[in-house]
């Protein structure tokens, strides 16, 4: 019963914040999508952090360390790069967003290149990014309930919860599905109500919780294994038939997952992809001013790197020693479940929920913006009222939540990090569309369009070569991450085609590239 009470308290607090945000908001698209560009540095920093840290970081990253060893520690060094990007791309995007009233990433790209097809293309990339990312959050919710309800035995009228089964009257389902549905429903409801303001305000609460959860989780694991030396000594000694002793603390790791080229490229894919994703992009727009972004950069780089290196790394590697044979993505949950008093374990579970919900809400919210602002208004109902658009966004958040949930509860869809990396690789394809508006006057519309089209084609082929009858190489040829192949091709095509096609009009260049 205890876990459910603690989770109930957490959900009620989150919900209360969502309702307060709804109360403060206005029914306008600018308010619903970017909170009227009014957010200070604490809200901006914690919202960016909470959107960044998700089931991916709390469950997926320990899972990768558990399976692949120390190599995944280097993936975590994408965080300082992300910090720099908050300022390097966030500041100019904020300024352009403010000056020209942009709401979505596509608004900016379409305005610069005067291209509605580019608007749709960038929107589609954003939509393709959002769905898998929402899926892994709901998947995390499922794992969470699956593990924590093992000791519960609740009988409330028609509601029965024990033995990994939920029964309501004649209806019965697994706790995994019940957990995923629960997390998705709560997230969906408060996002629908309060828009960006609700997303950001709840993210402040959730961001603080998840930082506590990660650091404390790492310290508890170290303590359980007799200190840092004890932890690493035991990790170094792990061996099996296929993995000799020491393989967990060297590259490419026991499963051969982490070669140096792979580490190098997937770190870049993750950092540039995540920070160019629609949900983060809209957070830059919603900041009150550059100083909010500047301070966010600093807080992000220092706090999150600390969380990863002293939290996640210890949880994943230590978890391998404590539980040699569990589902990798559930290792943190197993530590909490087996070694902590129930009340404390339940509190930590809420920190994982916070991570999952804070990312899911940001992404669902940005997906609604992409469809309403970039497809519904320009192509279906140009004269739609503000109120109508907000309601369309709410319907879309509902539909996207249901779709993501449906995918999340399918069996064997893959590890959390693997799905997350697909999302990041797709978002990275958006990054070159920024080069023209922000830095290079020579970038052209044709170059950007063909860069994205061919970049995506290469990404797909290098992701699933067997589906195209290609046997000369497997996924990620030469050990280079498939997302990086797509990105390199995108950049090369952008450069080549831009040299033989016409630049944006001089007036546009002058508007965007003011010194």
């Amino acid at each position, binding site marked *: 019963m205890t876990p459910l009470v603690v989770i109930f308290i957490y959900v009620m607090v989150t919900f209360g914040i969502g309702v307060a945000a709804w109360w403060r908001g206005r029914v306008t698209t*600018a308010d619903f999508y970017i909170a009227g*560009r009014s957010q200070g540095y604490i809200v901006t920093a914690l919202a960016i952090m909470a959107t960044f840290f998700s089931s991916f970081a709390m469950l997926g990253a320990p899972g990768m360390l558990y399976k692949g060893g*120390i190599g995944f*520690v*280097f993936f*975590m*060094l994408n965080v*300082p*790069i992300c*910090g*720099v990007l908050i*300022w390097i791309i966030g500041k100019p995007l904020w*300024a352009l967003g*403010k*000056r*020209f*009233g942009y709401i979505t990433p596509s608004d900016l790209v379409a305005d610069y290149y005067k291209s509605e097809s580019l608007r749709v293309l960038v929107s589609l990339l954003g939509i393709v990014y959002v769905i898998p990312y929402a899926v892994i959050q709901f998947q995390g919710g499922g794992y969470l309930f699956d593990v924590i309800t093992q000791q519960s035995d609740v009988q409330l009228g028609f509601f029965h919860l024990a033995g990994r089964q939920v029964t309501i009257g004649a209806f019965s389902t697994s706790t995994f599905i019940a957990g995923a549905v629960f997390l998705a429903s709560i997230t969906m409801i408060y996002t629908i109500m309060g828009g960006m303001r609700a997303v950001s305000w709840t993210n402040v609460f959730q961001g603080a919780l998840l930082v506590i959860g990660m650091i404390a989780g790492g310290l508890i694991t170290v303590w359980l294994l007799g200190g*840092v*030396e*004890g932890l*690493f*000594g035991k*990790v*170094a000694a792990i061996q099996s038939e296929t993995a000799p*002793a*020491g393989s967990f*603390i*060297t*590259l490419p790791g026991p499963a051969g997952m982490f070669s*140096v080229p792979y*580490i*190098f490229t997937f*770190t870049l894919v993750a950092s540039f992809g995540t920070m160019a994703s629609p949900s983060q992009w809209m957070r830059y727009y919603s900041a*009150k*001013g*550059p*100083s*909010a972004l*500047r301070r966010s*950069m*600093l807080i992000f*780089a*220092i706090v999150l*790197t600390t969380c990863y*290196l002293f939290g996640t*790394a210890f949880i994943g590697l230590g978890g391998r020693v404590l539980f040699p044979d569990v589902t990798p993505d559930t290792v943190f949950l197993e530590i909490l479940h087996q070694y902590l008093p129930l009340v404390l374990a339940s509190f930590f579970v809420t920190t994982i929920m916070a991570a999952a919900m804070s990312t899911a809400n940001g992404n669902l919210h940005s997906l609604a913006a992409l469809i309403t602002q970039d497809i519904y208004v320009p192509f279906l109902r140009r004269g739609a009222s503000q109120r109508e658009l907000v309601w369309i966004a709410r319907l879309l958040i509902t539909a996207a939540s249901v779709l993501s949930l449906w995918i999340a509860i399918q069996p064997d869809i893959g590890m959390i990090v693997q799905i997350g990396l697909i999302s990041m690789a797709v978002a990275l394809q958006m990054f070159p569309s920024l080069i023209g508006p922000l830095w290079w006057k020579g970038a052209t519309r044709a170059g950007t369009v063909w860069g994205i089209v061919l970049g995506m084609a290469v990404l797909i082929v290098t992701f699933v070569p067997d589906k195209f009858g290609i046997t000369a190489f497997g996924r990620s040829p030469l050990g280079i991450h498939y997302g990086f192949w797509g990105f390199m091709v995108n950049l090369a095509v952008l450069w080549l085609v831009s040299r033989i096609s016409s630049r944006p009009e001089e007036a546009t260049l002058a508007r965007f590239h003011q010194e």
Partner: protein
Amino acid sequence: MQEMTREQKKRLFRKLLWLFFGAFLMSNGPGLYLVNSPRLIAGIPILYLWGLFWAVVQILIIVYAYQKLWRYELEVEITGPDGETGVGKGAGR
């Protein structure tokens, strides 16, 4: 302390960018080949210490850039299409 000119700031920015990239090559690129062994130093794997060290270097570069280049950057007032102005607080010295 004397305020840096725009040119000086640009030069410093480029230097720091190259330094950051160099640190990244060491932490996540070819630099890893230098330390890829199961050795433990004070009970901690050398690879973990290597990652930790370069993470600290990268963060120090960010903090230095923040202090020298960005912290006191003047923020121009921007007027949006709706007539509202947007400006960051803490304008230049």
